[in-house]
């Protein structure tokens, strides 16, 4: 556990807090971009270069752009940190606290769980993480070729579904808080096809 890990870990947690508690959706989104980028940094530090690059490329570069795009498109940057419904937030916090406690205990294997996670992984084989594109690609395109193709199919289905869902029937848009209807439609569809 190096200093860099601690430092970036702390940053990650702060960014994640920003995602959850930022008042404006756009700030949330930017925090999430930062979080994702930092997670990519963690990946790189763990030796998973390829996944790190993909993380930035796919998550930060594509998915989050889409999210921000939608936020901008719909003009949704109203501050609404708290649900209007009185969902008992303290209850949620308690749940999360219990859950986190369980996870921490599980990781530190204090004997609560039937099998401690760390006990079961302690005999790990190696410390060098094979994470280069060649290694990952080799496994991906041999052992996992079928799931790989399935993933391609899934993405195709997602594209078609997204276009279908986002496709606007010939009826007037609501009091568009974003931009003119034509502009939105054109770009949003092209945009969604990207993913």
């Amino acid at each position, binding site marked *: 556990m190096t200093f860099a890990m601690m430092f970036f870990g702390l940053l990650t947690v702060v960014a994640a807090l920003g995602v959850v508690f930022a008042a404006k959706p756009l700030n949330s989104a930017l925090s999430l971009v930062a979080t994702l980028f930092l997670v990519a940094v963690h990946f790189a530090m763990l030796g998973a*270069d*390829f996944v790190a690059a993909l993380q930035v490329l796919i998550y930060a570069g*594509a998915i989050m*752009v889409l999210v*921000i795009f939608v936020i*901008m498109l719909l003009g949704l940057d109203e501050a609404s940190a708290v649900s209007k419904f009185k969902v008992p937030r303290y209850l949620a916090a308690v749940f999360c606290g219990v859950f986190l406690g369980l996870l921490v205990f599980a990781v530190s294997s204090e004997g609560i769980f039937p099998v401690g996670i760390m006990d079961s992984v302690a005999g790990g084989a190696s410390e060098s993480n094979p994470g280069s594109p060649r290694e990952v690609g080799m496994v991906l395109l041999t052992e996992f070729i079928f799931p790989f193709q399935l993933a391609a199919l899934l993405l195709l289905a997602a594209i078609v579904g997204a276009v279908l869902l986002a496709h606007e029937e010939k009826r007037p848009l609501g009091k568009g808080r974003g*931009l003119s209807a034509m502009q939105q439609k054109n770009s949003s569809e092209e*945009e969604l096809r990207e993913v």
Partner: protein
Amino acid sequence: MEELIDVGLVVLKAALVMGAVLKLAALVTWVERKASALIQNRVGANRAAILGFDLAGIVNTLICDPVKALTKEDFVPKGVSQFMHSLAPFMGIFPVILSFAVIPFGPPLVIGDRIIPLQVAQLNIGVLYVLAMGSLAVYGTVLAGWVSNNKFSLLGSLRASAQMISYEITLGLSIIGVLALYQTLDFAEIVNQQSGTVLGFLPNWGIFMSPFNVIAFIVFFVSAMAETKRAPFDLPESESELVAGYFTEYSGMKFLLFWLGEFAEIVVASALVVVLFFGGWQLPWVDISEWGWQGSLLGTMVFGAKVSFFCVLQVVIRWSVPRFRYDQLLDLCWKKMLPIALVNLVLTVAFMLWMDG
């Protein structure tokens, strides 16, 4: 001590590269102004001069313009986050400069028993790294358009995000075939593979490695130009439609940062083209990697020359071709370049299989 020297060298290289890129970008602005003047049959920047020497406008663009920008008022529109407003230009230029970190600009320098690769960071995922950085570049644009609180800016950033994401696809797809030929994502390795000749007389550059790499080059070059958001792909900032697009509300040094980022992108695009298709620092027919420090120097100069060439080429194109319409822009990407890139990939792989017998 050794570690300290290593770290120091990396810092030195980083500073060197960053400076070089920014200087190059600034130079490109000068080229832009002079070339546009040349093309439009006018004189171009010639007002400012030091002791009567305007140095063909260099003084004007490299000294006076920055000074003017720095001294201008930094205007922030009402009702927007000051922090976000300032963040946007940085997020625009930051990934561009970062992506230069993996570009090798010369053969390794050998001093004593220390081998110094002329590359800030040698990553085994170099190509992916550049693409990832390119995908991050969109945030500056988008953020700028959003925080400007201005319809023109918003339109510009919406256009920019769609355009950049779309062309990223073709950018990535076009070079998969080439990368399959190289069998690596490491730029240094890629450049190393481009020494020697092919068919006896052509330099063994990427573009000559397979008959289909010309297609890949064209698709890649066009996509890279679209990524820089410059004419004929300057929809996000088209002056005649959106005032200045996403940086309409920017002034002073922030504006200059956008401007600089754009030109840095030109440099990055050119560098990528050179590294992937035109041999990087390799000199045709001559192997300079064995020449010691002279070789390194020569290689760096060769690389610079090649990059400069493509920068100028982009500027010339920018001033020669009219702007697309928005639907044409996306049509070009999704309905022409993407299929072409895919076909090219198939053809290249077929070629590889044929070569292997």
